[in-house]
Each structure stands twice: as C-alpha cells, then as structure tokens.
C-alpha cells in the first residue's frame, strides 16, 4: 500500500505510468491536507505561507496551516522543520501553541513528486504585533500584566524543558480571542544543555535584530535562556510604546541603540564581556548612562513595571532576571492585579495579525525580513523556513 520502491523513484519520474503510480500512493498515517479547507492567508515570511483553514467535516474546527518550504530539495526534509516538529511535540502548555498534526500536500509532476508538508496548529485569532498596531485596541495596566504574566509563564515552561525560543518578538506572540497567550514559531528554537563546564557553540545569528540581546550581537555562542528574556523585555516595553523600542538598521546600530538605553557596555557592568569575539571589533559608545527607567517612564508610568523592565533589559546575561524570578516580581502582585483579556478582546471582531495590519509608525512594512536574517540563512544552513507560525 505504501510502496515507493527506490528503483522506481530512481527512474527519474518521466513516464506517465510512474506519475500516476506516485499520485495514487496513500499514506494512512499522514493525512492529506485536503481534509482542511483554506479560508485566508494570514502570514507570509521568508519561510513560506500560513493559512487559516477549517476542517471540511466539522467547519467549526479552525486551524492554522503552516507550509513547510521544501526549497532545498536536494537536502530532503529541512532540518529546521524537523527541529520545530520535535520541539512542539515535546512542549505541551497552555501558553505554547499546540501542534495538532502534520499533513501532506499532493505529490505530482509539478513538484517533482515531492510532497509538501503542512504543520497544523490550533488557531489563534490575533498576534501581539497586530494588536499593538491597532490604535483601537487599548490595554489597561491589569491587562498588560496578564499578557506579560502569560508570556513569562510560557518562557518559564520552555526553559524548564531546556528549549530556547530564539525568536522572541511581538509577531510571534499569539493571543486567542479568549485572551490566552501562546508562544509561537519554534522554527529557530533549539534544545540547550545546562551542563556546567562545557562550552556550547550555538549559532549567534538568531533572533530578529530589534529583539536581539547584546550578548548575541557581540558574538557569544555559549548562551542560554537570558536571550529570550531580553526579547520579552523588549516586548513588554512595546506594550506601552506600541512600536519596537530599538529599531536598529544593522548590528552595529543596534548595539548603539542598546548602549544609549542601557548604558555603555563594558567590563564594569558586565564581567567577561571583553572576552566576547566582537567586543573589540565593533564600536561601542562610551560614557553612556543607563537610562532604562528614565526613558521609559513617560510611557510606562507604573514604577513596578519600570523596575521589572530594568531587570529584563540588563546588559549582563548573568545578571538579567530569569522568568521564574520575574513572575514573582511585585509588578504581578500589586494592584491592579492581572485581569483577563477576554472582555477587552470581545470588542474586536476582526482577527489582527501583523501580516494583515497596515505598517506601524516608524517601521518598514515587513520588519520581519531583514538582510541579516537572509545572510544568516546562508551561514548556518538554517533554511528560509523561519519567522512566524502565523
């Protein structure tokens, strides 16, 4: 029934008989994507496309289909997609998007009989970037606390499971219409080891530039959970500023922006920074004062919020607050307490995704796709399959 004999595929697939033979193959363990009916395209990144779809047999079952780009066909199934699948199979948490199944598309002459694959996710109505770009969506302090609490809770969970997300940004934070937050897009995620004494050599060409922490910008390859906390800090500030707080145009520029906000980078505030590969190779502004609270105060106002932001945006990753400690911060345990988002979201009937939203102020239309990322795809063989689940 599932015969795909190697001798036949070795034949080059030119004969018509072979075509119809391959097209008639059935894979009972891997459903055909045609069981879903596409409703709309909701995402487009360098990785490919994301669609909203519903089950044909039960039209109330809405899902998101993320297409796995099989661009580099000679290398087979993309390693990044394999990683994402494995990681998502491992992670089961309310604040992490859940993978329902993997479906296959048709294999025919048009795609050289190489079937496309789709990751099928539970559907979430909004992403945070989309919500923040809509001026009609207003978060009060209690609601912001709820967003951050769920975000940190998701981070805590994945870090407990030894997974680094490595692509924290508002567009990768999904929110259901009931106000449940889900971390999404594990296309760049990987497992990390906590064994002391071993130096890991992970690629540092991860995380969208604007959310990239200073240690990665300085070439650190032995990094860990703090990289995600930095991104979470950037997202938190964005809850008030409504647009990304540090929109660098290059790695160098990003480091300059970070120094202007968080103070000069040097061994006095960050022990061991001088040993990072790029520390002496890039220009780091000197004599900058740390102005995190000062600069964010006009937007944020709440003193606890400012304090937590200050701790999340700490330059030295070793001193940066971890998700567990952050969840115990007074910010979450003082009035107004975190409040459910459901009521506020009820007023908004339309799905809000960054992809569908008009460009935000001060931002290019599609910030997700940056030259750095394309370059990185070449550098570490991370195929173009990345960006957003939605």
């Amino acid at each position: 029934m599932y015969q795909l004999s190697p001798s036949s595929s070795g034949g080059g697939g030119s004969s018509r008989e072979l075509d119809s033979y391959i097209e008639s193959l059935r894979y009972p363990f891997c459903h055909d994507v045609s069981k879903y009916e596409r409703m709309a395209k909701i995402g487009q990144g360098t990785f490919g496309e994301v669609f909203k779809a519903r089950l044909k047999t039960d039209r109330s079952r809405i899902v998101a289909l993320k297409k796995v780009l099989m661009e580099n066909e000679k290398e087979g199934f993309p390693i990044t997609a394999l990683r994402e699948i494995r990681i998502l199979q491992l992670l089961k948490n309310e604040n992490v998007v859940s993978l329902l199944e993997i479906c296959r598309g048709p294999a025919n002459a048009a795609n050289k009989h190489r079937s496309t694959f789709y990751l099928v996710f539970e559907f979430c109505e909004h992403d945070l970037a989309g919500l923040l770009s809509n001026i009609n969506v207003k978060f009060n302090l209690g609601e912001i606390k709820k967003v951050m609490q769920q975000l940190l809770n998701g981070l805590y969970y994945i870090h407990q499971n030894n997974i680094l997300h490595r692509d924290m940004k508002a567009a990768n934070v999904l929110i259901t219409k009931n106000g449940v937050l889900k971390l999404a897009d594990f296309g760049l995620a990987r497992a990390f080891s906590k064994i002391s004494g071993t130096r890991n050599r992970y690629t540092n060409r991860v995380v969208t530039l604007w959310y990239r922490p200073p240690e990665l910008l300085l070439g650190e390859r032995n990094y860990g959970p703090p990289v995600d906390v930095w991104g979470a800090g950037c997202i938190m500030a964005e809850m008030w500023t409504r647009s990304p707080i540090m929109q660098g145009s290059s790695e160098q520029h990003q480091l300059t922006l970070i120094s202007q906000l968080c103070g000069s980078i040097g061994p006095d505030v960050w022990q061991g920074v001088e040993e990072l590969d790029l520390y002496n190779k890039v220009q780091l502004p000197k004599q900058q004062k740390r102005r995190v609270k000062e600069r964010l105060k006009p937007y944020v106002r709440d003193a606890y919020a400012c304090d937590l932001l200050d701790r999340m945006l700490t330059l030295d990753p070793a001193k940066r607050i971890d998700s567990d400690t952050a969840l115990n911060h007074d910010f979450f345990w003082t009035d107004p307490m975190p409040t459910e988002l459901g009521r506020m979201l009820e007023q908004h009937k339309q799905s809000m995704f960054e992809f569908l939203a008009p460009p935000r102020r001060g931002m290019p239309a599609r910030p997700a796709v940056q030259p750095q990322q394309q370059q990185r795809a070449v550098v570490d063989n991370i195929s173009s399959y990345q960006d957003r689940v939605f």
Partner: protein
Amino acid sequence: MHKILNVLPPGDTGMKLDAKVMTVASASVLFHRFFREVNTTDYDVYLIAGSCLYLAGKLEDQTLKARDVINVTQATLRPGGRPLDMDEAYWNLRDALVQAELLVLRMLRFNTDFEHPHKYLLHYMVSLEDWLGDVVFHRLPLRRTAWTLLRDSYMDPFILDVKPQWLALACIHVSLQCYGLNVPGSVEGGKTWYETMCPSCSRETLWDVTEKVLDVYGQEQQLFSVPVGSVSSAVYS
C-alpha cells in the same frame, strides 16, 4: 532472514561515516521502527538504512552529507569499490535517499523521539564506581564493555520494547558477569543493586533483557555471512 538483513546497515555504515554514537543509535531506532510497519522485502534495506542515518544526522545535530552517506553505503555493499562518479546514477541514488527520508518520516508519523539508555548507563556506572571502588573500576574495562554491549544491542529491534533503564542495567549486568564481579550487598539484605537503581527492574526482568542482549551475539554468524549486495543489485548497479 528478514531480521538478519535489517540489523546490519545503520551501525556498520555509521561507524565508517564517523557518526556520533547517538546518531547511529537514533538511526537504528528509526530503521527498526520503519520495518515494524512494513515488510522487509518491500523495501531496499540499505537505502532505508542510509536514509535513516541521514535523517538521524539532522535530528542529532550532526548533519551528515548526503553524498557521504551514499558513498559509505556503497562501500559497505562493495568493499574496495571506488566512490561513485557524479553522474546520473549518483543523482538517482541521492533522489532515492531523500524520497526515502520523507517516506520514513511519514511512516513514523513524524514521531522521531526516543529515550535512549545511554544516559542511564553513564549514570548507573558513576554510582557503581562508588559502590565497587576505584581499584576494581580502573583495573577492569567494565565501562567500555557495558558501552559496547549497549551499542551492539541496537542491531536488534528488541530495544524498542524494553525500558531504557532496563537495557542499561542488563548491559552492566553482562559486563559484571564477564569479569566475574559481584556487587557487594546484592545477595542478602533486601534490595539488589539493580533494583536500587531502577525499582521497576526485577530479577526476572533483568534476566529477560540480559538474554536479549546476549542473543544479539548469537546472530553474529548469520549477520556477517549475508551475501552483500544481493538484495540491492537492482538499485546499486
């Protein structure tokens, strides 16, 4: 016969590829799982073995080059032969390798996770070292023997059915027996050393798994007398 055929490839080919222990182990798991679902005669075992190795390289963060996998598979089938030229035959093989990878993934429902016994073996060995003392441990190659036993166990699909802890204990058990060692305190006084390390491992379980570990060596004779290439002549011609 089927069993014999499907045990050899990933391990043997993997060694020549200089693949990491865990890559070869994962490849073997994929391979055994695959042939649990289908008949060995329907697929070319060497092609599937190569694909499993290629896929395991991706899973274990040790990306293996498709070309290397193909060449080494060739070398396994035709010892002493030359590497393939980059001609049509090569590209067909490469295409087959990649197609088979997708086939394996679909057959396994993309479920590629497996808990390997290696970490338990290492962990138990550290405890035993304290128990038996440095002297015994450094005089005898206990660790290496247990490790080798574990690697060889992956030749047989039984590894899919036993708890990783049990298999680790069985390998240590055989290793201890090889050197005539007894773990002190294991006869009287209640709990045995293996129950102390893994409470679900009863004496019967241990002996049962031990037998399976030893059985792998019973197949050795047949394994290496397989007429190499006979099944694959159609593909690797």
